[in-house]
């Protein structure tokens, strides 16, 4: 069912420099060449009846309802498949057309149930609308004959062999074949939009029916539950269960998804303050009307019973919680921070901002740290994901952000994906990438694991460089070696755009024989010929684009690898236009924004170092306070300082460091050593179990603000329901600042953005009004680029000349040996998100109810492990137990798991190793041993005990008299 708010123009837009003018029902219409007659008519506000056409999909021409008459053409062509021509004269309505359309509708309705009044699509059904539009008054064929509608043959009581019962296996939507008109919109949506090709039309003629995989249930099939088919369905055949339960929405509001860094635009379809469903926005600049299972369906957490909506405090973490008023909670937190700073010094407190919160919320937290705490101890979870991107791209290109729009991929000839799994981590962008690959772009995948993209319907990677975890830099140096020594350098680009001294140094470095694919193949495990072929392919096409993820950054050499990628892009001239670029796939919805907003301990908003007197001076003038010129502690440094007794107070905004950060036991020991931890979150997450103050947070549905996605695109988040705690997150932070004695007086998040714009050169032109007007805007947005900057580094690099850096391969110290012979690497899965705090509280558990350890069958066999066995996983840092899944997706010698469930303890195993430049943890390489076991690990037993105790303390929460 399409959105209640969108107008469907029937066929997709066409781009053409040439305009074509035609006459439709006497109206002159001008449209780009290639546009269909149906779309041209719709643009002239003429509605041609249609069923199989929708502007999200290519025309199909099967329903025969949209036929028209065109002067000089024979018969009655379908307007959806007929392109416009200059001077064409079209008639969309006359007696003959009406008669034909009624005939078509009569046939459709003769095999369709007549339960319109109780049907969930009632009021928003295209079949019903068309029956009305064509004036259908009778169905002469009756309903007694051969049909798909009735369970029993009418009048006979025997089972109807054509009838197929409703499939309710998917937790979010139902499939009712009795209502299907076989328009193929669902099948085409699965093909064209999602690119999974899970659906098909089975059989021929009257036997035709929609089938998921080979007649499987939707849940068991290859369906990834993106919901594109549900949105495409013109009847109630595919319907959201929420619509079945509640009825139609009555209004809608455009907002931005709070899951991954793609930042999809959605219409929240509402009834009052209740969400009926989320429908991806057709005009969304990042997603163009597509979505994934998380963004569209997994929103139940926002109203989950586990939500905590009242502030709570306690003196010790062994005490029960005490529900108090907002004023009391804030006063308590402020007095504790003041006490700690008085006792242990100004630098003994700090904060962690959230990459899931809005830019405005993050900005006020870092402002609180710098202005009210008086230090720079603020960091963000980007520390543990893309901090190397910020560092590496700033050093080479001059700006800490990706260079392109997502749409740029449609011009790429070669796509290189390094250490990213887009179909799971960034599914909506992956669908666009797959669309380009199906059009013929070539694919190179560098990943230790055979990710889905390597071979998927109609797509096969030209090269899968299945390297050993931890050898990225060795691989990129080998690729660069081939580019430089085989004459693939784009000399013109380098001479015009790059710093030549740095280039020459780099050229000499990578030319050394020790970096050749032959010399490095024993290190990387990738055959030299494969590396050479991939390098030649990458460097020999007009447009080659690199997409990368945490498989690049979360290594001891994460920053080196980011620089290696930038070096390669510059050397081959692949920066500064569409179809190319360096594209970090950012993890969380607002991780780009949280970095932009000055969440790092060394940088003010806009990536200006705290020691920069001019930048700091501007903030001091606006904030009316003296700021520290010394960088503060990063998250891992905070933990170290806590264990030393020098760091005692932490304000955590919407993050769960006790689950997401490496070496869990080290983290929890640090948290236990602090005297005041304030957690602002929706739930009592793992970190909150160590907290003294709990400030209830608000979901993205409960606030106004902005998120910035991986393309630097700033989009609006809009409040569609009141905050359940009564107080927005930025307001809570403001209250805390005021209680600490630093005044903040914002009355709306737009005022915070106005301040950001005043103080940040790349945001000078940004305002809520402008975003509302343009839909979204990509920074830099200022006088030089008033409507934003889709592509960066077009004529010159942000830093002037592009700078090459020497990228020495330094092997990680995390090495396998006889005791720890396997390498563990971690990742994520489509249905779950990060620590799972949100997705575990939704029906997405149907796809992933526990984390599993993927192990190669050979490694499993020598350990006597079979599918589903409990296995102990032990590293130098700790041990845990989870169930084994045998698969040859991982190489022999490598095991893999996800970290979505706290009890899995994936991060109990990961170590303190980190990126040399940014301290981003080395999540992707841990030496482990795997053994069959029969019970949970000691850590898991302790965890369960502690966690159960904390839940009891929550249940035992007493309510203060003042809030009763």
């Amino acid at each position: 069912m399409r959105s209640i708010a969108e107008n469907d123009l029937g066929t997709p837009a066409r781009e053409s420099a040439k305009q074509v003018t035609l006459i439709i029902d006497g109206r002159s219409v001008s449209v780009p060449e290639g546009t269909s007659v149906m779309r041209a008519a719709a643009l002239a506000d003429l509605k041609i009846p249609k069923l199989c056409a929708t502007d999200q999909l290519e025309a199909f021409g099967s329903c025969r309802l949209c036929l028209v008459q065109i002067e000089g053409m024979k018969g009655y062509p379908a307007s959806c498949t007929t392109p416009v021509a200059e001077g064409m004269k079209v008639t969309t309505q006359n007696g003959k057309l009406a008669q034909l359309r009624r005939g078509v509708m009569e046939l459709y309705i003769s095999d369709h149930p007549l339960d319109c009044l109780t049907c969930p699509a009632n009021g928003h059904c295209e079949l019903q609308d068309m029956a009305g539009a064509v004036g259908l008054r009778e169905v002469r064929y009756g309903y007694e004959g051969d049909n798909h509608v009735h369970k029993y043959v009418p009048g006979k009581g025997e089972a109807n062999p054509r009838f197929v019962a409703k499939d309710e296996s998917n937790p979010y939507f139902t499939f009712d074949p009795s209502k299907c008109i076989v328009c193929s919109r669902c099948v085409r949506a699965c093909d064209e939009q999602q690119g999974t090709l899970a659906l098909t039309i089975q059989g021929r003629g009257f036997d035709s029916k929609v089938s998921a995989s080979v007649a499987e249930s939707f849940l068991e099939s290859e369906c990834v539950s993106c919901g594109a088919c549900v949105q495409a369905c013109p009847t109630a055949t595919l319907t959201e269960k929420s619509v079945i339960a509640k009825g139609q929405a009555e209004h809608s509001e455009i907002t931005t998804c709070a899951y991954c860094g793609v930042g999809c635009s959605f219409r929240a379809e509402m009834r009052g303050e209740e969400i009926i469903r989320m429908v991806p926005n057709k005009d969304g600049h990042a997603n163009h009307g597509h979505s994934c299972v998380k963004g569209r369906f997994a929103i139940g957490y926002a109203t989950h019973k586990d939500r905590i909506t009242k502030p709570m405090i306690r003196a010790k973490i062994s005490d029960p919680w005490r529900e108090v008023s907002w004023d009391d909670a804030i006063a308590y937190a402020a007095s504790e921070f003041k006490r700690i700073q008085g006792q242990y010094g100004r630098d003994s407190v700090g904060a962690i901002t959230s990459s899931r919160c809005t830019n405005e919320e993050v900005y006020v937290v870092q402002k609180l740290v710098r202005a009210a705490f008086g230090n720079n101890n603020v960091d963000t979870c980007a520390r543990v994901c893309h901090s190397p991107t910020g560092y590496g791209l700033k050093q080479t290109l001059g700006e800490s952000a990706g260079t392109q729009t997502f749409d740029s991929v449609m011009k790429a000839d070669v796509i290189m994906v390094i250490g990213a799994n887009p179909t799971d981590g960034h599914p909506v962008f992956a669908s666009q990438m797959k669309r380009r690959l199906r059009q013929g772009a070539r694919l190179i995948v560098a990943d230790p694991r055979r990710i889905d993209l390597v071979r998927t319907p109609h797509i096969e990677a030209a090269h899968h460089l299945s390297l050993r975890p931890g050898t990225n830099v060795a691989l990129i140096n080998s690729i660069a070696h081939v580019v430089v020594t085989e004459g693939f350098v784009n000399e013109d680009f380098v001479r015009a755009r790059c710093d030549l001294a740095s280039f020459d140094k780099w050229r000499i470095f990578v030319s050394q024989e020790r970096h050749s694919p032959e010399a490095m193949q024993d290190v990387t495990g990738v055959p030299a010929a494969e590396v050479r072929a991939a390098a030649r392919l990458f460097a020999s096409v007009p447009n080659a684009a690199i997409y990368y993820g945490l498989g690049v950054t979360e290594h001891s050499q994460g920053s080196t690898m980011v620089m290696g990628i930038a070096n390669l892009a510059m050397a081959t001239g692949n920066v500064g236009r569409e179809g190319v670029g360096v594209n970090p796939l950012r993890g969380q919805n607002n991780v780009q924004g949280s970095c932009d907003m000055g969440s790092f301990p060394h940088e003010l908003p806009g990536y200006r170092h705290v020691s920069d007197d001019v930048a700091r001076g501007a903030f001091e003038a606006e904030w009316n306070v003296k700021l520290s010129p010394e960088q503060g502690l990063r998250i891992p440094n905070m933990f170290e300082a806590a264990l030393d007794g020098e760091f005692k107070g932490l304000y955590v905004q919407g993050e769960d460091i006790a689950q997401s950060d490496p070496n869990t036991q080290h983290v929890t020991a640090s948290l236990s050593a602090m005297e005041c931890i304030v957690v602002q979150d929706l739930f009592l997450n793992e970190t909150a179990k160590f907290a003294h103050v709990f400030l209830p947070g608000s979901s993205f549905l409960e606030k106004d603000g902005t998120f910035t996605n991986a393309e630097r695109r700033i989009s609006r988040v809009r409040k569609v329901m009141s905050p359940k705690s009564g107080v927005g997150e930025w307001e809570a932070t403001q209250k805390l600042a005021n209680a600490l004695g630093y005044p903040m007086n914002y009355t709306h998040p737009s005022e915070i953005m106005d301040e950001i714009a005043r103080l940040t050169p790349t945001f000078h032109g940004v305002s809520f009004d402008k975003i509302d007007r343009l839909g979204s805007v990509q920074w830099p947005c200022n006088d030089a680029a008033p409507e934003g900057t889709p592509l960066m580094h077009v004529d010159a690099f942000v830093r002037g000349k592009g700078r090459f850096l020497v990228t020495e391969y330094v092997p990680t110290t995390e090495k396998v040996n006889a005791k720890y012979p396997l390498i563990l690497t971690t990742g994520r899965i489509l249905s779950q998100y990060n620590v799972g705090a949100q997705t575990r509280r939704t029906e997405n558990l149907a796809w992933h109810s526990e984390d599993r350890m993927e192990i190669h069958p050979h490694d499993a066999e020598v350990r006597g492990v079979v599918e589903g066995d409990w296995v102990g996983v032990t590293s130098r840092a700790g041990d845990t137990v989870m169930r084994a899944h045998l698969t040859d997706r991982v190489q022999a010698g490598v095991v893999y798991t996800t970290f979505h469930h706290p009890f899995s303890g994936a991060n109990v195993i990961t170590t303190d190793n980190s990126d040399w430049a940014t301290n981003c943890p080395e999540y992707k390489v841990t030496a482990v041993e795997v053994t069959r076991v029969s019970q949970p690990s000691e850590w898991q037993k302790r965890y369960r005990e502690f966690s159960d105790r904390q839940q009891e303390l929550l249940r035992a929460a007493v309510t203060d008299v003042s809030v009763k």
Partner: protein
Amino acid sequence: MNLERLVIMANDIGGFFGGEPTAEERIAGVSNHLAKFWDPRMRRQIVAYAREGGADLSDHVRAAVLRLDVPPKT
């Protein structure tokens, strides 16, 4: 803070700049990085260690650390 961790982290930085062709570039690279990214208490601690000999620091890292200004305690 845990000195052993600080030494490892400083040597990791040294590892990257170890690829630079001249000794001066190697030392300056490490020194600038520490000055820009390490919190004052971490710098104080590593400088004190280097002044006492800094046995576990690589040579160019020790030289780089000894170039750092020691920020006063606040």
